């Protein structure tokens, strides 16, 4: 697959392979439970046999001991019926008990595996796939699979066995009529096949739409404040209504398809029965068949009705499982684009000097044509702090994301102490590099857990020191101190507080290379100054690459690089650039641009804006 990341969820019409192929590929999840499965199949078949035997014994009681007035025989046979009845219940119990553990265990294993795989896939994959689509795969799709494995598959086998058994008995009873019944399998097969095809498409559509609905819900939850701020509830509700309406329509269409097929499937044994009745009656009249034989034949044939009636449901269940398997495999088949090379080096923190070098680095996001970086050359010396400055959207954050290999460079290379980043073991590289992102990502977990993201073994003193450095001691004043669970995305904290926690988290890693993306943007002037002075001391021991917007933060940097049009156009100490590079001054200057700035439009019309109604 292209770039190893595959297409987004939008690529839904791929080349048709066998519809059951992906379901079959999941068989290795069944393997650990193979013994259990054979047991439950056996128990299930035996239970069915016992279930059939009970009325036969009852019939024999009536025909034998009761008719012959044999009390002892009556109790014997009644005892047998009781035993069979107990055995049936016990066997059903065994089947369902075994099933209850193996099917949920399989479901849990697949879920773990999908999650593990998703964690390996690069951010570019996650940018394309809404998490609602991923979520529906590990919830709805997996329960469909579980249902198929615990019921659909079992009844498929049981019904086939029953069907074949009955047909064989029928043929032995009366070859001609028996073959007639056997021939009724042909229309059944044709109906089932046609249904399978149509249902396959419908069930896939339904699952995709379920993913869409999940995506919408997730997005709503994310954008809730924006929605509230603009009072756009009705608009979102309308969008959700459209999406759920589509799901509803697919559900109804699916139901209609199933209704039509189930009714048709039902019609076949009924009509066969009618033909058997007419032909049988004629045969009896002609003396080629006894009435007793005809009765026996018909009552056996009646046993076929249930297996056929449930056929529609089983096929539907199977098709749903097949498309669910497709959707799960789509994720599992996506190869992680950013992985360890066959031969990798692991560097120890102590051996690292920290010379970070960008050599003719280019980069463009997958699916776009315009490169963001067009040949970046830049060296950050060991222990140096380098700030990257550039206009909004110039690619600063992209440049930073290449260092922990969240994205890989297009051409060119990035080296750390001379090693190409791609030659380093990923885990080792990410241990050496700590990143604080522009938007601090916090999880709804304890403050402690959020802080020790990259250093699970950090001690309390270290955490305290990191919090002090980031001026984030407010964490101790939360109701439960560091054990307090943060609100989701840390939204119960202010922007500045979240940013300081994210900074503390990065510093706590004690990285060789610290990457900070506009780390102090939400801090007030006073706090910023305090953080800066503390940060300065820490930065002495490590190489640091920062993105900054404010001149005040630049004070942290030894040198500054100006990123313009995807290239580094100037590097040097702040004062020097300020004096010699007009573009640099323009990017940082608060004065209305004296130097023409490329991003500056012709200037707002002076007569007010047409959009503003006054």
């Amino acid at each position: 697959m292209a770039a190893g990341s595959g297409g987004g969820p939008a690529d839904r019409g791929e080349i048709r392979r066998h519809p059951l192929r992906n379901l079959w590929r999941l068989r290795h999840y069944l393997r650990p439970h193979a013994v259990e499965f054979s047991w439950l199949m056996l128990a299930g078949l035996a239970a069915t046999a016992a279930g059939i035997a009970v009325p036969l014994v009852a019939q024999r009681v009536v025909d034998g001991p009761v008719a012959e007035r044999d009390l002892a025989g009556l109790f014997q046979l009644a005892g047998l019926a009781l035993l069979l009845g107990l055995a049936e219940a016990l066997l059903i119990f065994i089947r369902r008990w075994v099933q209850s553990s193996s099917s949920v265990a399989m479901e849990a294993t697949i879920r773990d595996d999908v999650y593990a795989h998703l964690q390996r896939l690069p951010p570019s994959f996650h940018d394309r796939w809404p998490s609602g689509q991923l979520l529906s795969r590990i919830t709805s799709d997996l329960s469909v699979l579980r249902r198929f494995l615990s019921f659909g598959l079992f009844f498929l086998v049981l019904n086939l066995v029953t069907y074949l058994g009955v047909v064989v008995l029928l043929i032995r009873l009366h070859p001609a009529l028996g073959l007639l019944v056997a021939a009724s399998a042909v229309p059944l097969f044709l109906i089932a096949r046609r249904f399978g095809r149509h249902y396959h498409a419908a069930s896939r559509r339904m699952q995709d739409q379920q993913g869409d609905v999940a995506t919408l819900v997730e997005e709503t939850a994310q954008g809730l404040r924006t929605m509230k701020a603009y009072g756009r509830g009705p608009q979102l509700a309308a969008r959700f209504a459209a999406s759920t309406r589509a799901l509803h329509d697919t559900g109804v269409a699916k139901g209609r398809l199933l209704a039509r097929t189930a009714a048709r499937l039902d019609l076949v044994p009924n009509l066969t029965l009618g033909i058997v009745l007419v032909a049988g009656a004629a045969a009896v009249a002609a003396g080629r068949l006894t009435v007793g034989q005809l009765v026996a034949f018909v009552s056996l044939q009646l046993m076929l009705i249930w297996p056929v009636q449930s056929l529609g449901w089983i096929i539907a269940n199977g098709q749903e499982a097949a498309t669910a398997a497709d959707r799960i495999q789509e994720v599992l088949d996506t190869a992680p684009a950013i992985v360890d090379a066959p031969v990798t080096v692991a560097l120890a923190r102590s051996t690292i000097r920290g010379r970070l070098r960008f050599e003719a680095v280019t980069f463009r996001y997958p699916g776009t044509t315009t490169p963001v970086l067009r040949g970046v050359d830049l060296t950050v010396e060991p222990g140096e702090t380098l700030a990257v400055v550039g206009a909004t959207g110039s690619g600063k954050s992209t440049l930073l994301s290449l260092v922990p290999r969240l994205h890989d460079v297009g051409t060119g290379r990035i080296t750390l102490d001379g090693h190409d980043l791609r030659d380093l073991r990923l885990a080792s590289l990410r241990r050496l590099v700590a990143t604080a992102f522009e938007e601090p990502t916090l999880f709804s977990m304890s403050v402690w857990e959020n802080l020790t993201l990259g250093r699970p073994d950090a001690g309390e003193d270290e955490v305290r020191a990191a919090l002090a450095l980031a001026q984030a001691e407010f964490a101790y004043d939360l109701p439960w101190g560091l054990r307090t669970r943060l609100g989701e995305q840390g939204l119960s904290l202010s922007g500045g507080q979240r940013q300081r926690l994210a900074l503390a988290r990065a510093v706590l890693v004690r990285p060789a290379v610290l990457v900070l993306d506009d780390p102090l943007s939400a801090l007030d002037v006073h706090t910023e100054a305090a953080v800066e002075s503390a940060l300065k001391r820490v930065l002495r021991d490590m190489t640091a690459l920062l993105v900054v917007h404010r001149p005040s933060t630049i004070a942290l940097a030894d040198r500054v690089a100006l990123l313009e049009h995807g290239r580094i156009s100037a590097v040097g100490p702040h004062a020097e650039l300020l004096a010699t590079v007009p573009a640099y001054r323009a990017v940082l200057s608060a004065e209305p641009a004296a130097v023409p700035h490329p991003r500056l439009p012709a200037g707002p019309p002076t007569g007010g804006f047409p959009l503003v109604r006054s």
Partner: protein
Amino acid sequence: MTGGTVGDGSSPAQRAPGPAADPAYWRGVAPDPHADRSLAEDASPEAVARLRARSRALLTDVLRPHRARLGAAVALLLAQNAAAMSGPYLVMLGIDRAIEPLRAGRPGPLVAVAVSFAAAAGIEYAARRGFLTLSARIGQAVLLDLRQRVYAHFLRLPVAFHERYTSGRMISRLTSDIDSIAELVDGGVESLVMAALTIVSVAGILLWLDLPLAAVTLLAFPLLFWLSRWFARASAAAYRRTREAMALVIVHFVESMRGIRAVQAYRREPRNQHIFASVNDDYRQSSQHAFRLIATYSPGIKLIGNVTVAAVLCYGGARVLGGDTGVGVLAAFLLYLRRFFEPMQELSQFYNSLQSATAALEKLAGVLDERPTVAEPGRPVPLPRGPLRGAITFRAVSFGYRPDAPILAGLDLSIPAGQTVALIGPTGAGKSTVAKLLARFHDPAAGTVTLDGVDLRQVADAELRRTVVLVTQETHLFGGTVAENIRFGRPEADDAAVEAAARAIGAHDFIAALPDGYATEVHRRGGRLSAGQRQLVAFARAFLADPAVLILDEATSSLDVPTERLVQHALGTILRDRTAVVIAHRLSTVETADRVLVLDGGRIVEDGPPAELIADGGRYAALHRQWRDSLL
């Protein structure tokens, strides 16, 4: 020296408290005791019973509009069943009445039987198809109704609710919980009606056939009842646990996918996997437990049925031997007895689905029961019309996110219409809280916030949102194009207006340079736009909304200095005749304000025009000096 210790190694003795795998440890302690559930979900037996009743009421309520259709479905089902039952009867008729005439050369009766048979098959086909179609329609309509009701309610619930409930849980309610209701809806009606029908009619036949034997059969009923009651209690608790366990799986999944950059950059994968495996295993265990209950209940029913058959066999046989009843009656009784217990299995399955669906319905009912505390007024007061609108007053406003930690205590503040006010102060001073109260994300605990003299609690939501817009630092872009995202501010705006808004704040250039210009899909949460670009789009959105009161909470923090300057220039024009509250750490915005308020500890400590405050040499003057020095 604080910074130094970070670089040092620390002794292993100073380890984090608690075992790492313990969820109570990694999840932390929620400040709100109701963090994991809606208020109605309480552990007390009364609360459980109340919620259960409410969930049943919800089910009845969503089914009510479909009464006629349900009736039709049941009628079709009965027709189908009657047609299906007539099959064996017609076979009997054919054998008993048609063979003799056929031997005599009269095919008439056989033809009649064959035609009736074909007709019955036709009726069965039509009725079955009709029933299945209809029940799918009803089921899907119920699901649609539930989804939309719950979604709409989620939108109505205040920000405070969502902050504690988490988005993962909201997603769980609207996906996984609805799925488990769908399982009931898919096959429920058929099995319930058929089973009830068969059991009642067969019970009648049994009583009519032989009263003493029927009495023996009835002895099974207390056992059935006892078993079902056990199952009802145990499975209700089990499925409730399943729903909660699933919600945790979803919460963890959604958050770790959303934060995948941080996860990967900090090599968090193994720990995440560990946590996921543990919540996943919790779910596995809880659903295994629930499945084991039905795995016991269903064979239990079977066992009672089979034992009853054996008992009837003995007793009935003895009665026949004693001459109290006929062989034929016993034979018939045994045949019908089987048909009596078979649907019990179906019924137990139905009961199981009902229990599972009810647990899910309880969760939904709990959400629906949640009162929107920041509610729309019942009788809204219209805002006065006039050229200059947007006067804001805070009167003795107190507020805190937690009762024990007040942020604002008796804040008084008056902003005349058209004034641009800058709010400054250290983090945690309550600046954002003022903004949120003004945008009515929360209602004050005491005191009032009024807009043009009208209490915000009395303003209709639509009117309030038309008048007041809050732009925050967190810029959310919805899936769709850039143009659609800007148009979110004013849905009826045309393309020209959208572009004009973008031009006004200097976002046009970068948007035009995108692959599809304004029609570029922003993808998931604006994946491909930088934070600054997203802020520009959010700004354009706010400008397009054209409110009388604009609140900017750190809305320019990710912009580079010249772009910010551009935005401010635009602001200067745009804010001229509207009220604005600006929160910014960068004081460049503040300079253009008419008035500066310095907030500390929830109180206004300085208030006046910027020039005056600088002259007074207070806090603002100090901050201003610091900021001036930081500029080029």
